[in-house]
């Protein structure tokens, strides 16, 4: 914890979204997606308010990662609509997709840092290319963000010199450098050794505390319980149960959720 700078309230590193606090920043309605004849998302309706932290849980194959990947257009859905911070998702327009992706950051299970670039250049690449940020501003911002995730001294290191937890924190800084309004986290601690999970989750928690809108697919139930405002249980391509962490974990309404939760105990 000590390595991570405490955010000052008036000096947040996070960008301000267009959406008002408390207004819906992600709107998903009647979203359906299939791979060939196999339907993986069977009509999802979900509004996420600005600043809300959402944990998506469920068995593998329940469609939770696919839903997350639809939000920034990595997966193409066939029916329904989706807007992020006022930007609709339009596959036909490469421009619109790039606009939308500037509003949504994504962190992956496998980090996906660019192995041929130093840590600093990983963070600076997209702001340089997409936002045409000048080198001086870009670098100072990258240094700030790396300090924010506790890796200020790793600016010139190569990704393969870092531990998994450090790589994942660089990936978070890289996402933040694009000033996203929403951050998607796709099982971001699943590839980490147990002792490295905490350092990543602490960064995510601090982002949540600073008001970042977060959607995370996670297997860390304790973390979901502690940080999430709302938990979504997905089952067979549908939102099967949704509610506050206390309600969902403390008093599950459906047999499927009860079964899922008890399967985690073993």
């Amino acid at each position, binding site marked *: 914890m000590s390595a991570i700078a405490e955010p000052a309230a008036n000096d947040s590193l996070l960008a301000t979204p267009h959406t008002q606090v408390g207004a819906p920043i992600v709107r998903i309605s009647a979203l359906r997606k299939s791979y060939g004849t196999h339907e993986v998302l069977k009509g999802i309706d979900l509004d996420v308010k600005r600043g809300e932290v959402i944990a998506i849980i469920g068995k593998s194959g329940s469609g939770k990662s696919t839903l997350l990947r639809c939000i920034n257009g990595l997966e193409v859905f066939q029916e329904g609509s989706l807007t992020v911070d006022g930007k609709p998702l339009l596959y036909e327009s490469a421009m619109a997709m790039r606009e939308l992706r500037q509003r949504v950051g994504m962190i992956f299970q496998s980090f996906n840092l660019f192995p041929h670039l130093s840590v600093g250049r990983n963070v600076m690449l997209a702001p340089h290319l997409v936002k045409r940020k000048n080198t001086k501003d870009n670098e100072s911002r990258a240094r700030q963000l790396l300090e924010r995730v506790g890796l200020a001294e790793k600016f010139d290191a*190569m990704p393969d010199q870092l531990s998994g937890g450090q790589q994942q924190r660089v990936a978070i800084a890289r996402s933040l450098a694009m000033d996203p309004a929403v951050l998607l986290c796709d099982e971001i601690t699943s590839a980490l050794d147990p002792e490295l999970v905490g350092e990543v989750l602490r960064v995510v928690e601090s982002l949540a505390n600073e008001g970042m809108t977060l959607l995370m697919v996670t297997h860390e139930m304790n973390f979901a319980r502690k940080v999430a405002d709302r938990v979504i249980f997905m089952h067979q391509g549908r939102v099967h149960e949704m509610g506050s962490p206390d309600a969902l974990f403390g008093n599950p309404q459906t047999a499927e959720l009860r079964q899922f939760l008890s399967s985690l105990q073993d």
Partner: protein
Amino acid sequence: MIEFTLWDIVRNLLLAARWTVALSLVAFIGGGVVGAALLVVRLMGRPTPNRLIAGYVQLFQGTPLLMQLFLLYFGLALMGFNTSAWVSAGLALTLYASAYLADIWRGCVEAIPRGQWEASRSLALSFGQQLTHVILPQAVRIAVPPTVGFLVQLIKGTALASVVGFVELTKAGGMIANVTYAPLLVYGCVALLYFGLCFPVSLYARSLERKLNVGHR
């Protein structure tokens, strides 16, 4: 009977070897440019162009280079193009090299994990930016050994251009062997000269590989 010294033989072979080098360079550079263009089109992932390119690659990989040389040489003549052996050999080898290089490089690009495409796409990079800043710099590292391997094949493959009457190293060797009556000596020299061309290329590739791997162990 005229006596030929070893120097006479080697000197004439060396003169002919210039054409082997020239033909190899033309085929490699031309094939590289065409192959790279085919690769980029293929990576854009549109179905119809992809099928056409796959067919093109199959066609050139599935037929002997010798047939391609014959067909192009006689085919162009039949269509009324009065081409020299030099032009048709250069063209045939360029097409041949482009098909192979497009395929070799596609394999190298496909070896880059999908996560690299996804991460760069998520950061709002355009297709061109993804290619030039994320994918190709990594693919180039993988591509050096097979590309150089193919270049060596190509240098040796230029020997086939002798069948359409193009005087390069092999053809010159045949002509000299006929007048000196010393085929073993002449072809031995020819083989050594090919080796002299190919071996430095392999050596250079090894040093290039090392250089590209610095900073990425």
